[in-house]
């Protein structure tokens, strides 16, 4: 199946530092590991998982063999990078800005006791898309007083990413 994977700029994994074989003329080499979610295996995102793991560079990854689905990611026995999603390079800052603007919008429409949240938005922008996505979702959750608002905001972010990056959800 096709999924997505964020890596560091040098092509290494964010948590394991594994240096992935990168696609060149074709897909990169297959990588195999026993499936044990969060400990071992090829970890990847469905489209709906992307906001939770936003990172520096994004690849399309082909998964094979045993695949375990969690609420926020997939873990597979085999995987290979198929292509870099260049649209993310172009849209990363726009996504960060969209999340910041959304956070401001939520605060502006909320009762005055939430106004102090506005001060965290702009200073968070240099930290990048993962933090701004979280900030917008947290503000929605805080204003609505329910985790459903957090999830709804994440779904909104997913929709934006799917449209801008041309991904099938």
């Amino acid at each position, binding site marked *: 199946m096709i999924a997505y994977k964020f890596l560091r700029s040098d092509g290494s994994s964010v948590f394991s530092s594994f240096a992935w074989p990168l696609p060149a003329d074709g897909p990169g080499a297959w990588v195999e590991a026993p499936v044990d979610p969060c400990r071992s295996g090829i970890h990847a995102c469905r489209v709906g998982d992307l906001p939770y793991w936003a990172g520096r560079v994004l690849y399309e990854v082909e998964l094979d063999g045993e695949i375990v689905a969690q609420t926020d990611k997939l873990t597979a026995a085999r995987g290979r990078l198929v292509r870099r999603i260049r649209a993310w390079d172009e849209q990363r800052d726009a996504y960060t800005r969209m999340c910041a603007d959304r956070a401001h919008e939520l605060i502006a429409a909320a009762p005055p006791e939430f106004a102090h949240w506005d001060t965290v938005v702009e200073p968070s922008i240099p*930290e*990048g898309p993962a933090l701004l*996505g979280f900030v917008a979702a947290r503000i929605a959750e805080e204003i609505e007083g329910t985790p459903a608002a957090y999830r709804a905001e994440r779904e909104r972010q997913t929709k934006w990413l799917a449209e801008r990056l041309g991904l099938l959800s």
Partner: protein
Amino acid sequence: MAEHITCQEVVELVTDYLERELAPEEASLFEQHLNFCDGCIVYVEQIRATAATVGRVREEDVPPETRDKLMTAFREWKRS
């Protein structure tokens, strides 16, 4: 199931995370947090480095004077 964890919870869970004792869903929330929180990344790396360093020290490597100071500090901390 929580949607996210806080920096305080990262501090509470860090040992279990490094020892791979967290349940997968908890470990996922922990790593989601690390994905956006530079302060917690630094903290986790400090704990990882400390555990790796201290884990190499044998009891007989610690001078008696240092051992007594550490034990006193530990007892004071437990009382506080």
